[in-house]
């Protein structure tokens, strides 16, 4: 990695660490909410004759919802630069803009991945979720889903004109995407229209990927399709964002 990239990644990590309260809230809240949704997922699992206990779905659902909501942090990472006047500074600095953007996306992709994994870990400790399949497969799904989210986040930033717009798109999008994928309530309980659009949502593939990864016999091969869909989605959205990106565009922002 180049000196520049190390510097940019270090800066992003440092800034994220200095808003640790936000990071902590995004870790605690999903566990609390999973406590409420756990019974609903367990009941549906029982009625549908699934082998799942419901805990893995409750935990995975919250991991997905909050990883999606973490988009707001990615948005802040871009909009803060505008508010602080450092964006033009970076544009004028001897560094390719692709590295500036790449460092942000890499750090926030890692953050989202780690948060999902931390939730699985905390979910395991607090609610008795055990990974009977493959830990590596869980990591793969978390990483692939985070990639899809990061791609969507970058595209949302590129098309938004202000961080207010970005936040609305982010939270609304997170709820719709998570809801239609079965992360908020069991997929089988969703209205028919939501079940129809569900497979178009990254959350759908992430939910199924998590379930397959933690279930007995779960392996990388079991989640390959899920990860493939999620990775392709992330790359497609990210590429669309890169094509539409106008670095000189002025955006309304507040720090």
């Amino acid at each position, binding site marked *: 990695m180049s*000196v520049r990239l190390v*510097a940019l990644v270090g800066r992003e990590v440092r800034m994220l660490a200095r808003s640790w309260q936000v990071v902590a809230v995004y870790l605690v809240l999903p566990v609390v909410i999973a406590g409420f949704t756990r019974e609903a997922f367990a009941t549906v699992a029982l009625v549908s004759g699934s082998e799942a206990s419901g805990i893995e779905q409750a935990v995975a659902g919250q991991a997905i919802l909050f990883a999606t909501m973490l988009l707001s942090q990615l948005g802040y990472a871009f909009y803060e630069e505008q508010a*602080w006047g450092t964006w*033009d500074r970076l544009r004028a600095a*001897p560094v390719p803009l692709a590295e500036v953007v790449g460092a942000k996306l890499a750090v926030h992709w890692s953050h989202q991945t780690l948060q999902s994994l931390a939730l699985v870990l905390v979910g395991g400790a607090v609610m008795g979720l055990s990974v009977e399949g493959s830990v590596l497969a869980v990591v793969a799904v978390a990483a692939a889903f985070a990639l899809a989210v990061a791609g969507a986040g970058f595209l949302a930033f590129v098309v938004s004109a202000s961080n207010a717009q970005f936040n609305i798109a982010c939270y609304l999008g997170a709820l719709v995407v998570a809801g239609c994928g079965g992360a908020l309530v069991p997929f089988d309980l969703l209205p028919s229209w939501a079940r129809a659009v569900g497979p178009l949502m990254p959350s759908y593939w992430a939910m199924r990927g998590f379930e397959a990864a933690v279930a007995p016999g779960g392996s990388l091969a079991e989640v390959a399709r899920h990860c493939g869909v999620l990775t392709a989605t992330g790359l497609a959205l990210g590429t669309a964002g890169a094509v539409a990106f106008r670095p*000189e565009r002025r955006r309304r922002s507040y720090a």
Partner: protein
Amino acid sequence: MSPLVEVERVAVTYGRGPAARDALRGVDLGIDAGEVVGLVGRNGAGKSTLMSVVAGLVAPVDGRVRIGGRGQDGSLATKRRVGLAPQDEGIYPTLTVRENLDLFVRLAGRRGAARRRRVEELAEELVLSELLDRRAGQLSGGQRRRVHTALAFAHSPEVLLLDEPTAGVDVETRTALLDAVRRASAAGAAVVYSTHHLHELDQLGCRVAVLDAGRLVADDPIPALLARYAASAIEVDFDGPAPGDGFPGAERVERVEHEAGRLRIVIDDPAAHLGEVATWAAGSDRRVLGIRVVEADLEAVYLRLAGGPAPDADGTPLLR
């Protein structure tokens, strides 16, 4: 030999259609290595746009900019040669001063001991050594401005673009910034320094470029500007209308201006003629309220070139 920075017929237009606004209209400017050019003009005259074009942040619709003979194409090669401190402050408030400086020194590719040494040098140069471990967001306005300017120096650029670096700062900060500009210039950097504090340009003894409505209306060293656009004078204030004529040394006077009770006698070396004029004024039938020598200064030049009413919508220049 060509100047280090060559700005040729640069035109910039913001917006499209009926909302389009010309920010620069065919500006030509050359800056040599080691030279400081003071850029002045009213708000909206195009100073910041010109700096952005030289820095490669704004693409001109016409004309071109060359840095060291190479076209400003926004490439890394040209970015390495240019350091910009934009008008609006641009620092990371959640990072310490050291982390802010360190980031931009690293972006310039320095590592290890050289990197640490450069951070210390920058801190010393901009009087930030005592503040290195404080969060930038906790600093005073003047201290933040020094950090902001220091970031432009981080990679030791050959071309420094400082857009109103002393806006809202105290005397200590202004002195530190002007010293830093002098040192950079002495080390061979071409500096473009925009300001509304004209006395700073006097202190820097630099060439002055005046922008008005996107056009360069003057570009000369200060003595040449003063000779061309401003004149020294003796001003006499009377209680009532000023007498029309009859003062001594009429043949040496360039011109006489009346303004209510004030008589302005434009003359070479006014101090030498002060006694003569005072005697004449005291002997007139009007009571004299005051008499003083008014030296030609940059402010007079500025007011003449760019201080009038706002230009017409079509950008008619204000050269009078």
